[in-house]
């Protein structure tokens, strides 16, 4: 091929490539969750509004969230409790670690019972009976005064993760 022609062709190719790169980037970015969907990225929980020694229900990122506010009258669990002020709080994503159904709290046996395959968790979210082997997942959270921000990684969360490894 003639030298000038080759130069023109390769510069056109480079130009096209640049254009395609940024165009495809734009397309990909416009398919990311819009602002409305991002509102669910974090859930704010006011700890004073929670009833004591009862399970409360919230949602975080379209997933159910179980919160237990308790004092020393219930079983405490170093690996799963957050102490704020005088009370202890346990946060769990309410999705069974077996196959992803939502367990129901059975107040008579004080357990979470999953209707699908009868997986059982205690009220701290620890796995008790087969088929479940893993405890309910603790979502990332951050404690800010009297608010728990679910969805943001904070100091207390990291400490809890350290404790659960031990």
């Amino acid at each position: 091929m003639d030298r000038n022609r080759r130069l023109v062709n390769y510069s056109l190719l480079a130009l096209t490539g640049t254009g395609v790169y940024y165009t495809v980037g734009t397309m990909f970015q416009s398919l990311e969750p819009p602002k409305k969907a991002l509102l669910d990225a974090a859930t704010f929980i006011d700890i004073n509004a929670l009833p004591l020694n009862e399970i409360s229900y919230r949602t975080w990122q379209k997933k159910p969230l179980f919160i237990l506010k308790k004092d020393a009258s219930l079983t405490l669990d170093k690996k799963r409790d957050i102490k704020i002020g005088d009370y202890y709080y346990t946060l769990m994503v309410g999705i069974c670690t077996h196959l992803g159904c939502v367990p129901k709290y059975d107040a008579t046996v004080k357990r979470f019972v999953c209707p699908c395959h009868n997986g059982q968790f205690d009220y701290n979210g620890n796995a008790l009976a087969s088929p479940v082997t893993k405890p309910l997942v603790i979502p990332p959270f951050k404690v800010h005064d009297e608010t728990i921000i679910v969805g943001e990684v904070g100091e207390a969360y990291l400490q809890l993760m350290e404790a659960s490894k031990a």
Partner: protein
Amino acid sequence: MNLKLKNFNILLYTGAIMVVLCLLLLVSGIFLSMHYIPDAEKAFESVHTTIMQEVNYGWLWRKIHALGSTFFFLLLYIHLLGMLYFGFYKHGKTKYWYSGMVLYFCCMVIGFTGYVLPMGQMSYWAAQVITSLLEYIPGAGEDIVLWVRGDFSVSGITLLRFYTLHIVVMPLAITLMVLTHTDFVKWYATTKLSWNRKGLHVSKEERFSKHDITPKEPKPFFSNAILKPLLACTLFLALFFYCVFFHDELAFDALNLTPANPSDTPSHIYPEWYFLWMLQLLKSFFFDIGMIKGSYIGMASLVVVNVGLLLMPLLDRNPRRIPAHQRPYFLAWFWALVVSLIGLTILGKLPSSTLTLWIGLFFSTVLMALFFILPFLSGKESHAKS
């Protein structure tokens, strides 16, 4: 590069640019339809809040789509009038003209249905008024309107069927017609996209000139057949994106920023600029002639002009396909057509007054008369020396 003004090079590339625009409209439309909700209650919000503010680059897709449609119609008119000027609807070119006219009607439908989708005031009343036009069809007008709307007046049901027309039916029809219009099958069968110097297929089609054309040296297809249209497209796209980023008011009207309200008609309704001349045709006959209602005449004039355009190959009785500047009568006819179209377009945007009504009547009458006169004019021409 032979960029002399007398070569009217823009006319050679309108088609190529329109194909590029079609692709832009297709891609931006796909991304818009991912967030648009075709529902009477939610449509306005999904366009103005979700797409314009919440989706990354949603504003960009919408502006490309809106400006793209405006520019598409501009190029369509240039293309159409240019082909009219050079007589490209006669003798072996008729199939291009007829398929092009089908494309033109499809583009009217897709443009109109798309305009209704955001469900602003203008959108809603455009839909209401345009569907009301069908009432003028003698005999079953009111039943047809009911059937087209799917409801007693324009509503969510109408919106949903317009949406379907806009994103599925018409794009498919237009794609098929574009392939027909560009002789794609023939082109594909005879052109070697070669990297090995097999060369560009030179068509053996007879020209209107009596002299034989000297056979051309075959040239490599790539840079020879691509670079000039590519340059034209590049220049156009530079202008286009300048308008997208800095002059979106070309396509967005503030009157469409209020949500549709079925019980409140805006005092001054007008469509997008490319339909203004048709609106003015409709409005121009403001008096009744004997038993016939004025609005009927307006409707009839709209049909006459569009059918006249469609039947150009039959109306022009000059046997030779030569450009208008070699045909004195036709040249005058052509420029009268252009001037009355532009005049009607300007009048369509202005609020109605006595003066605009009378000027509009004049231009409408001229526009209608042109198509009735043409056979006689062109017949005369073929006897005269030209």
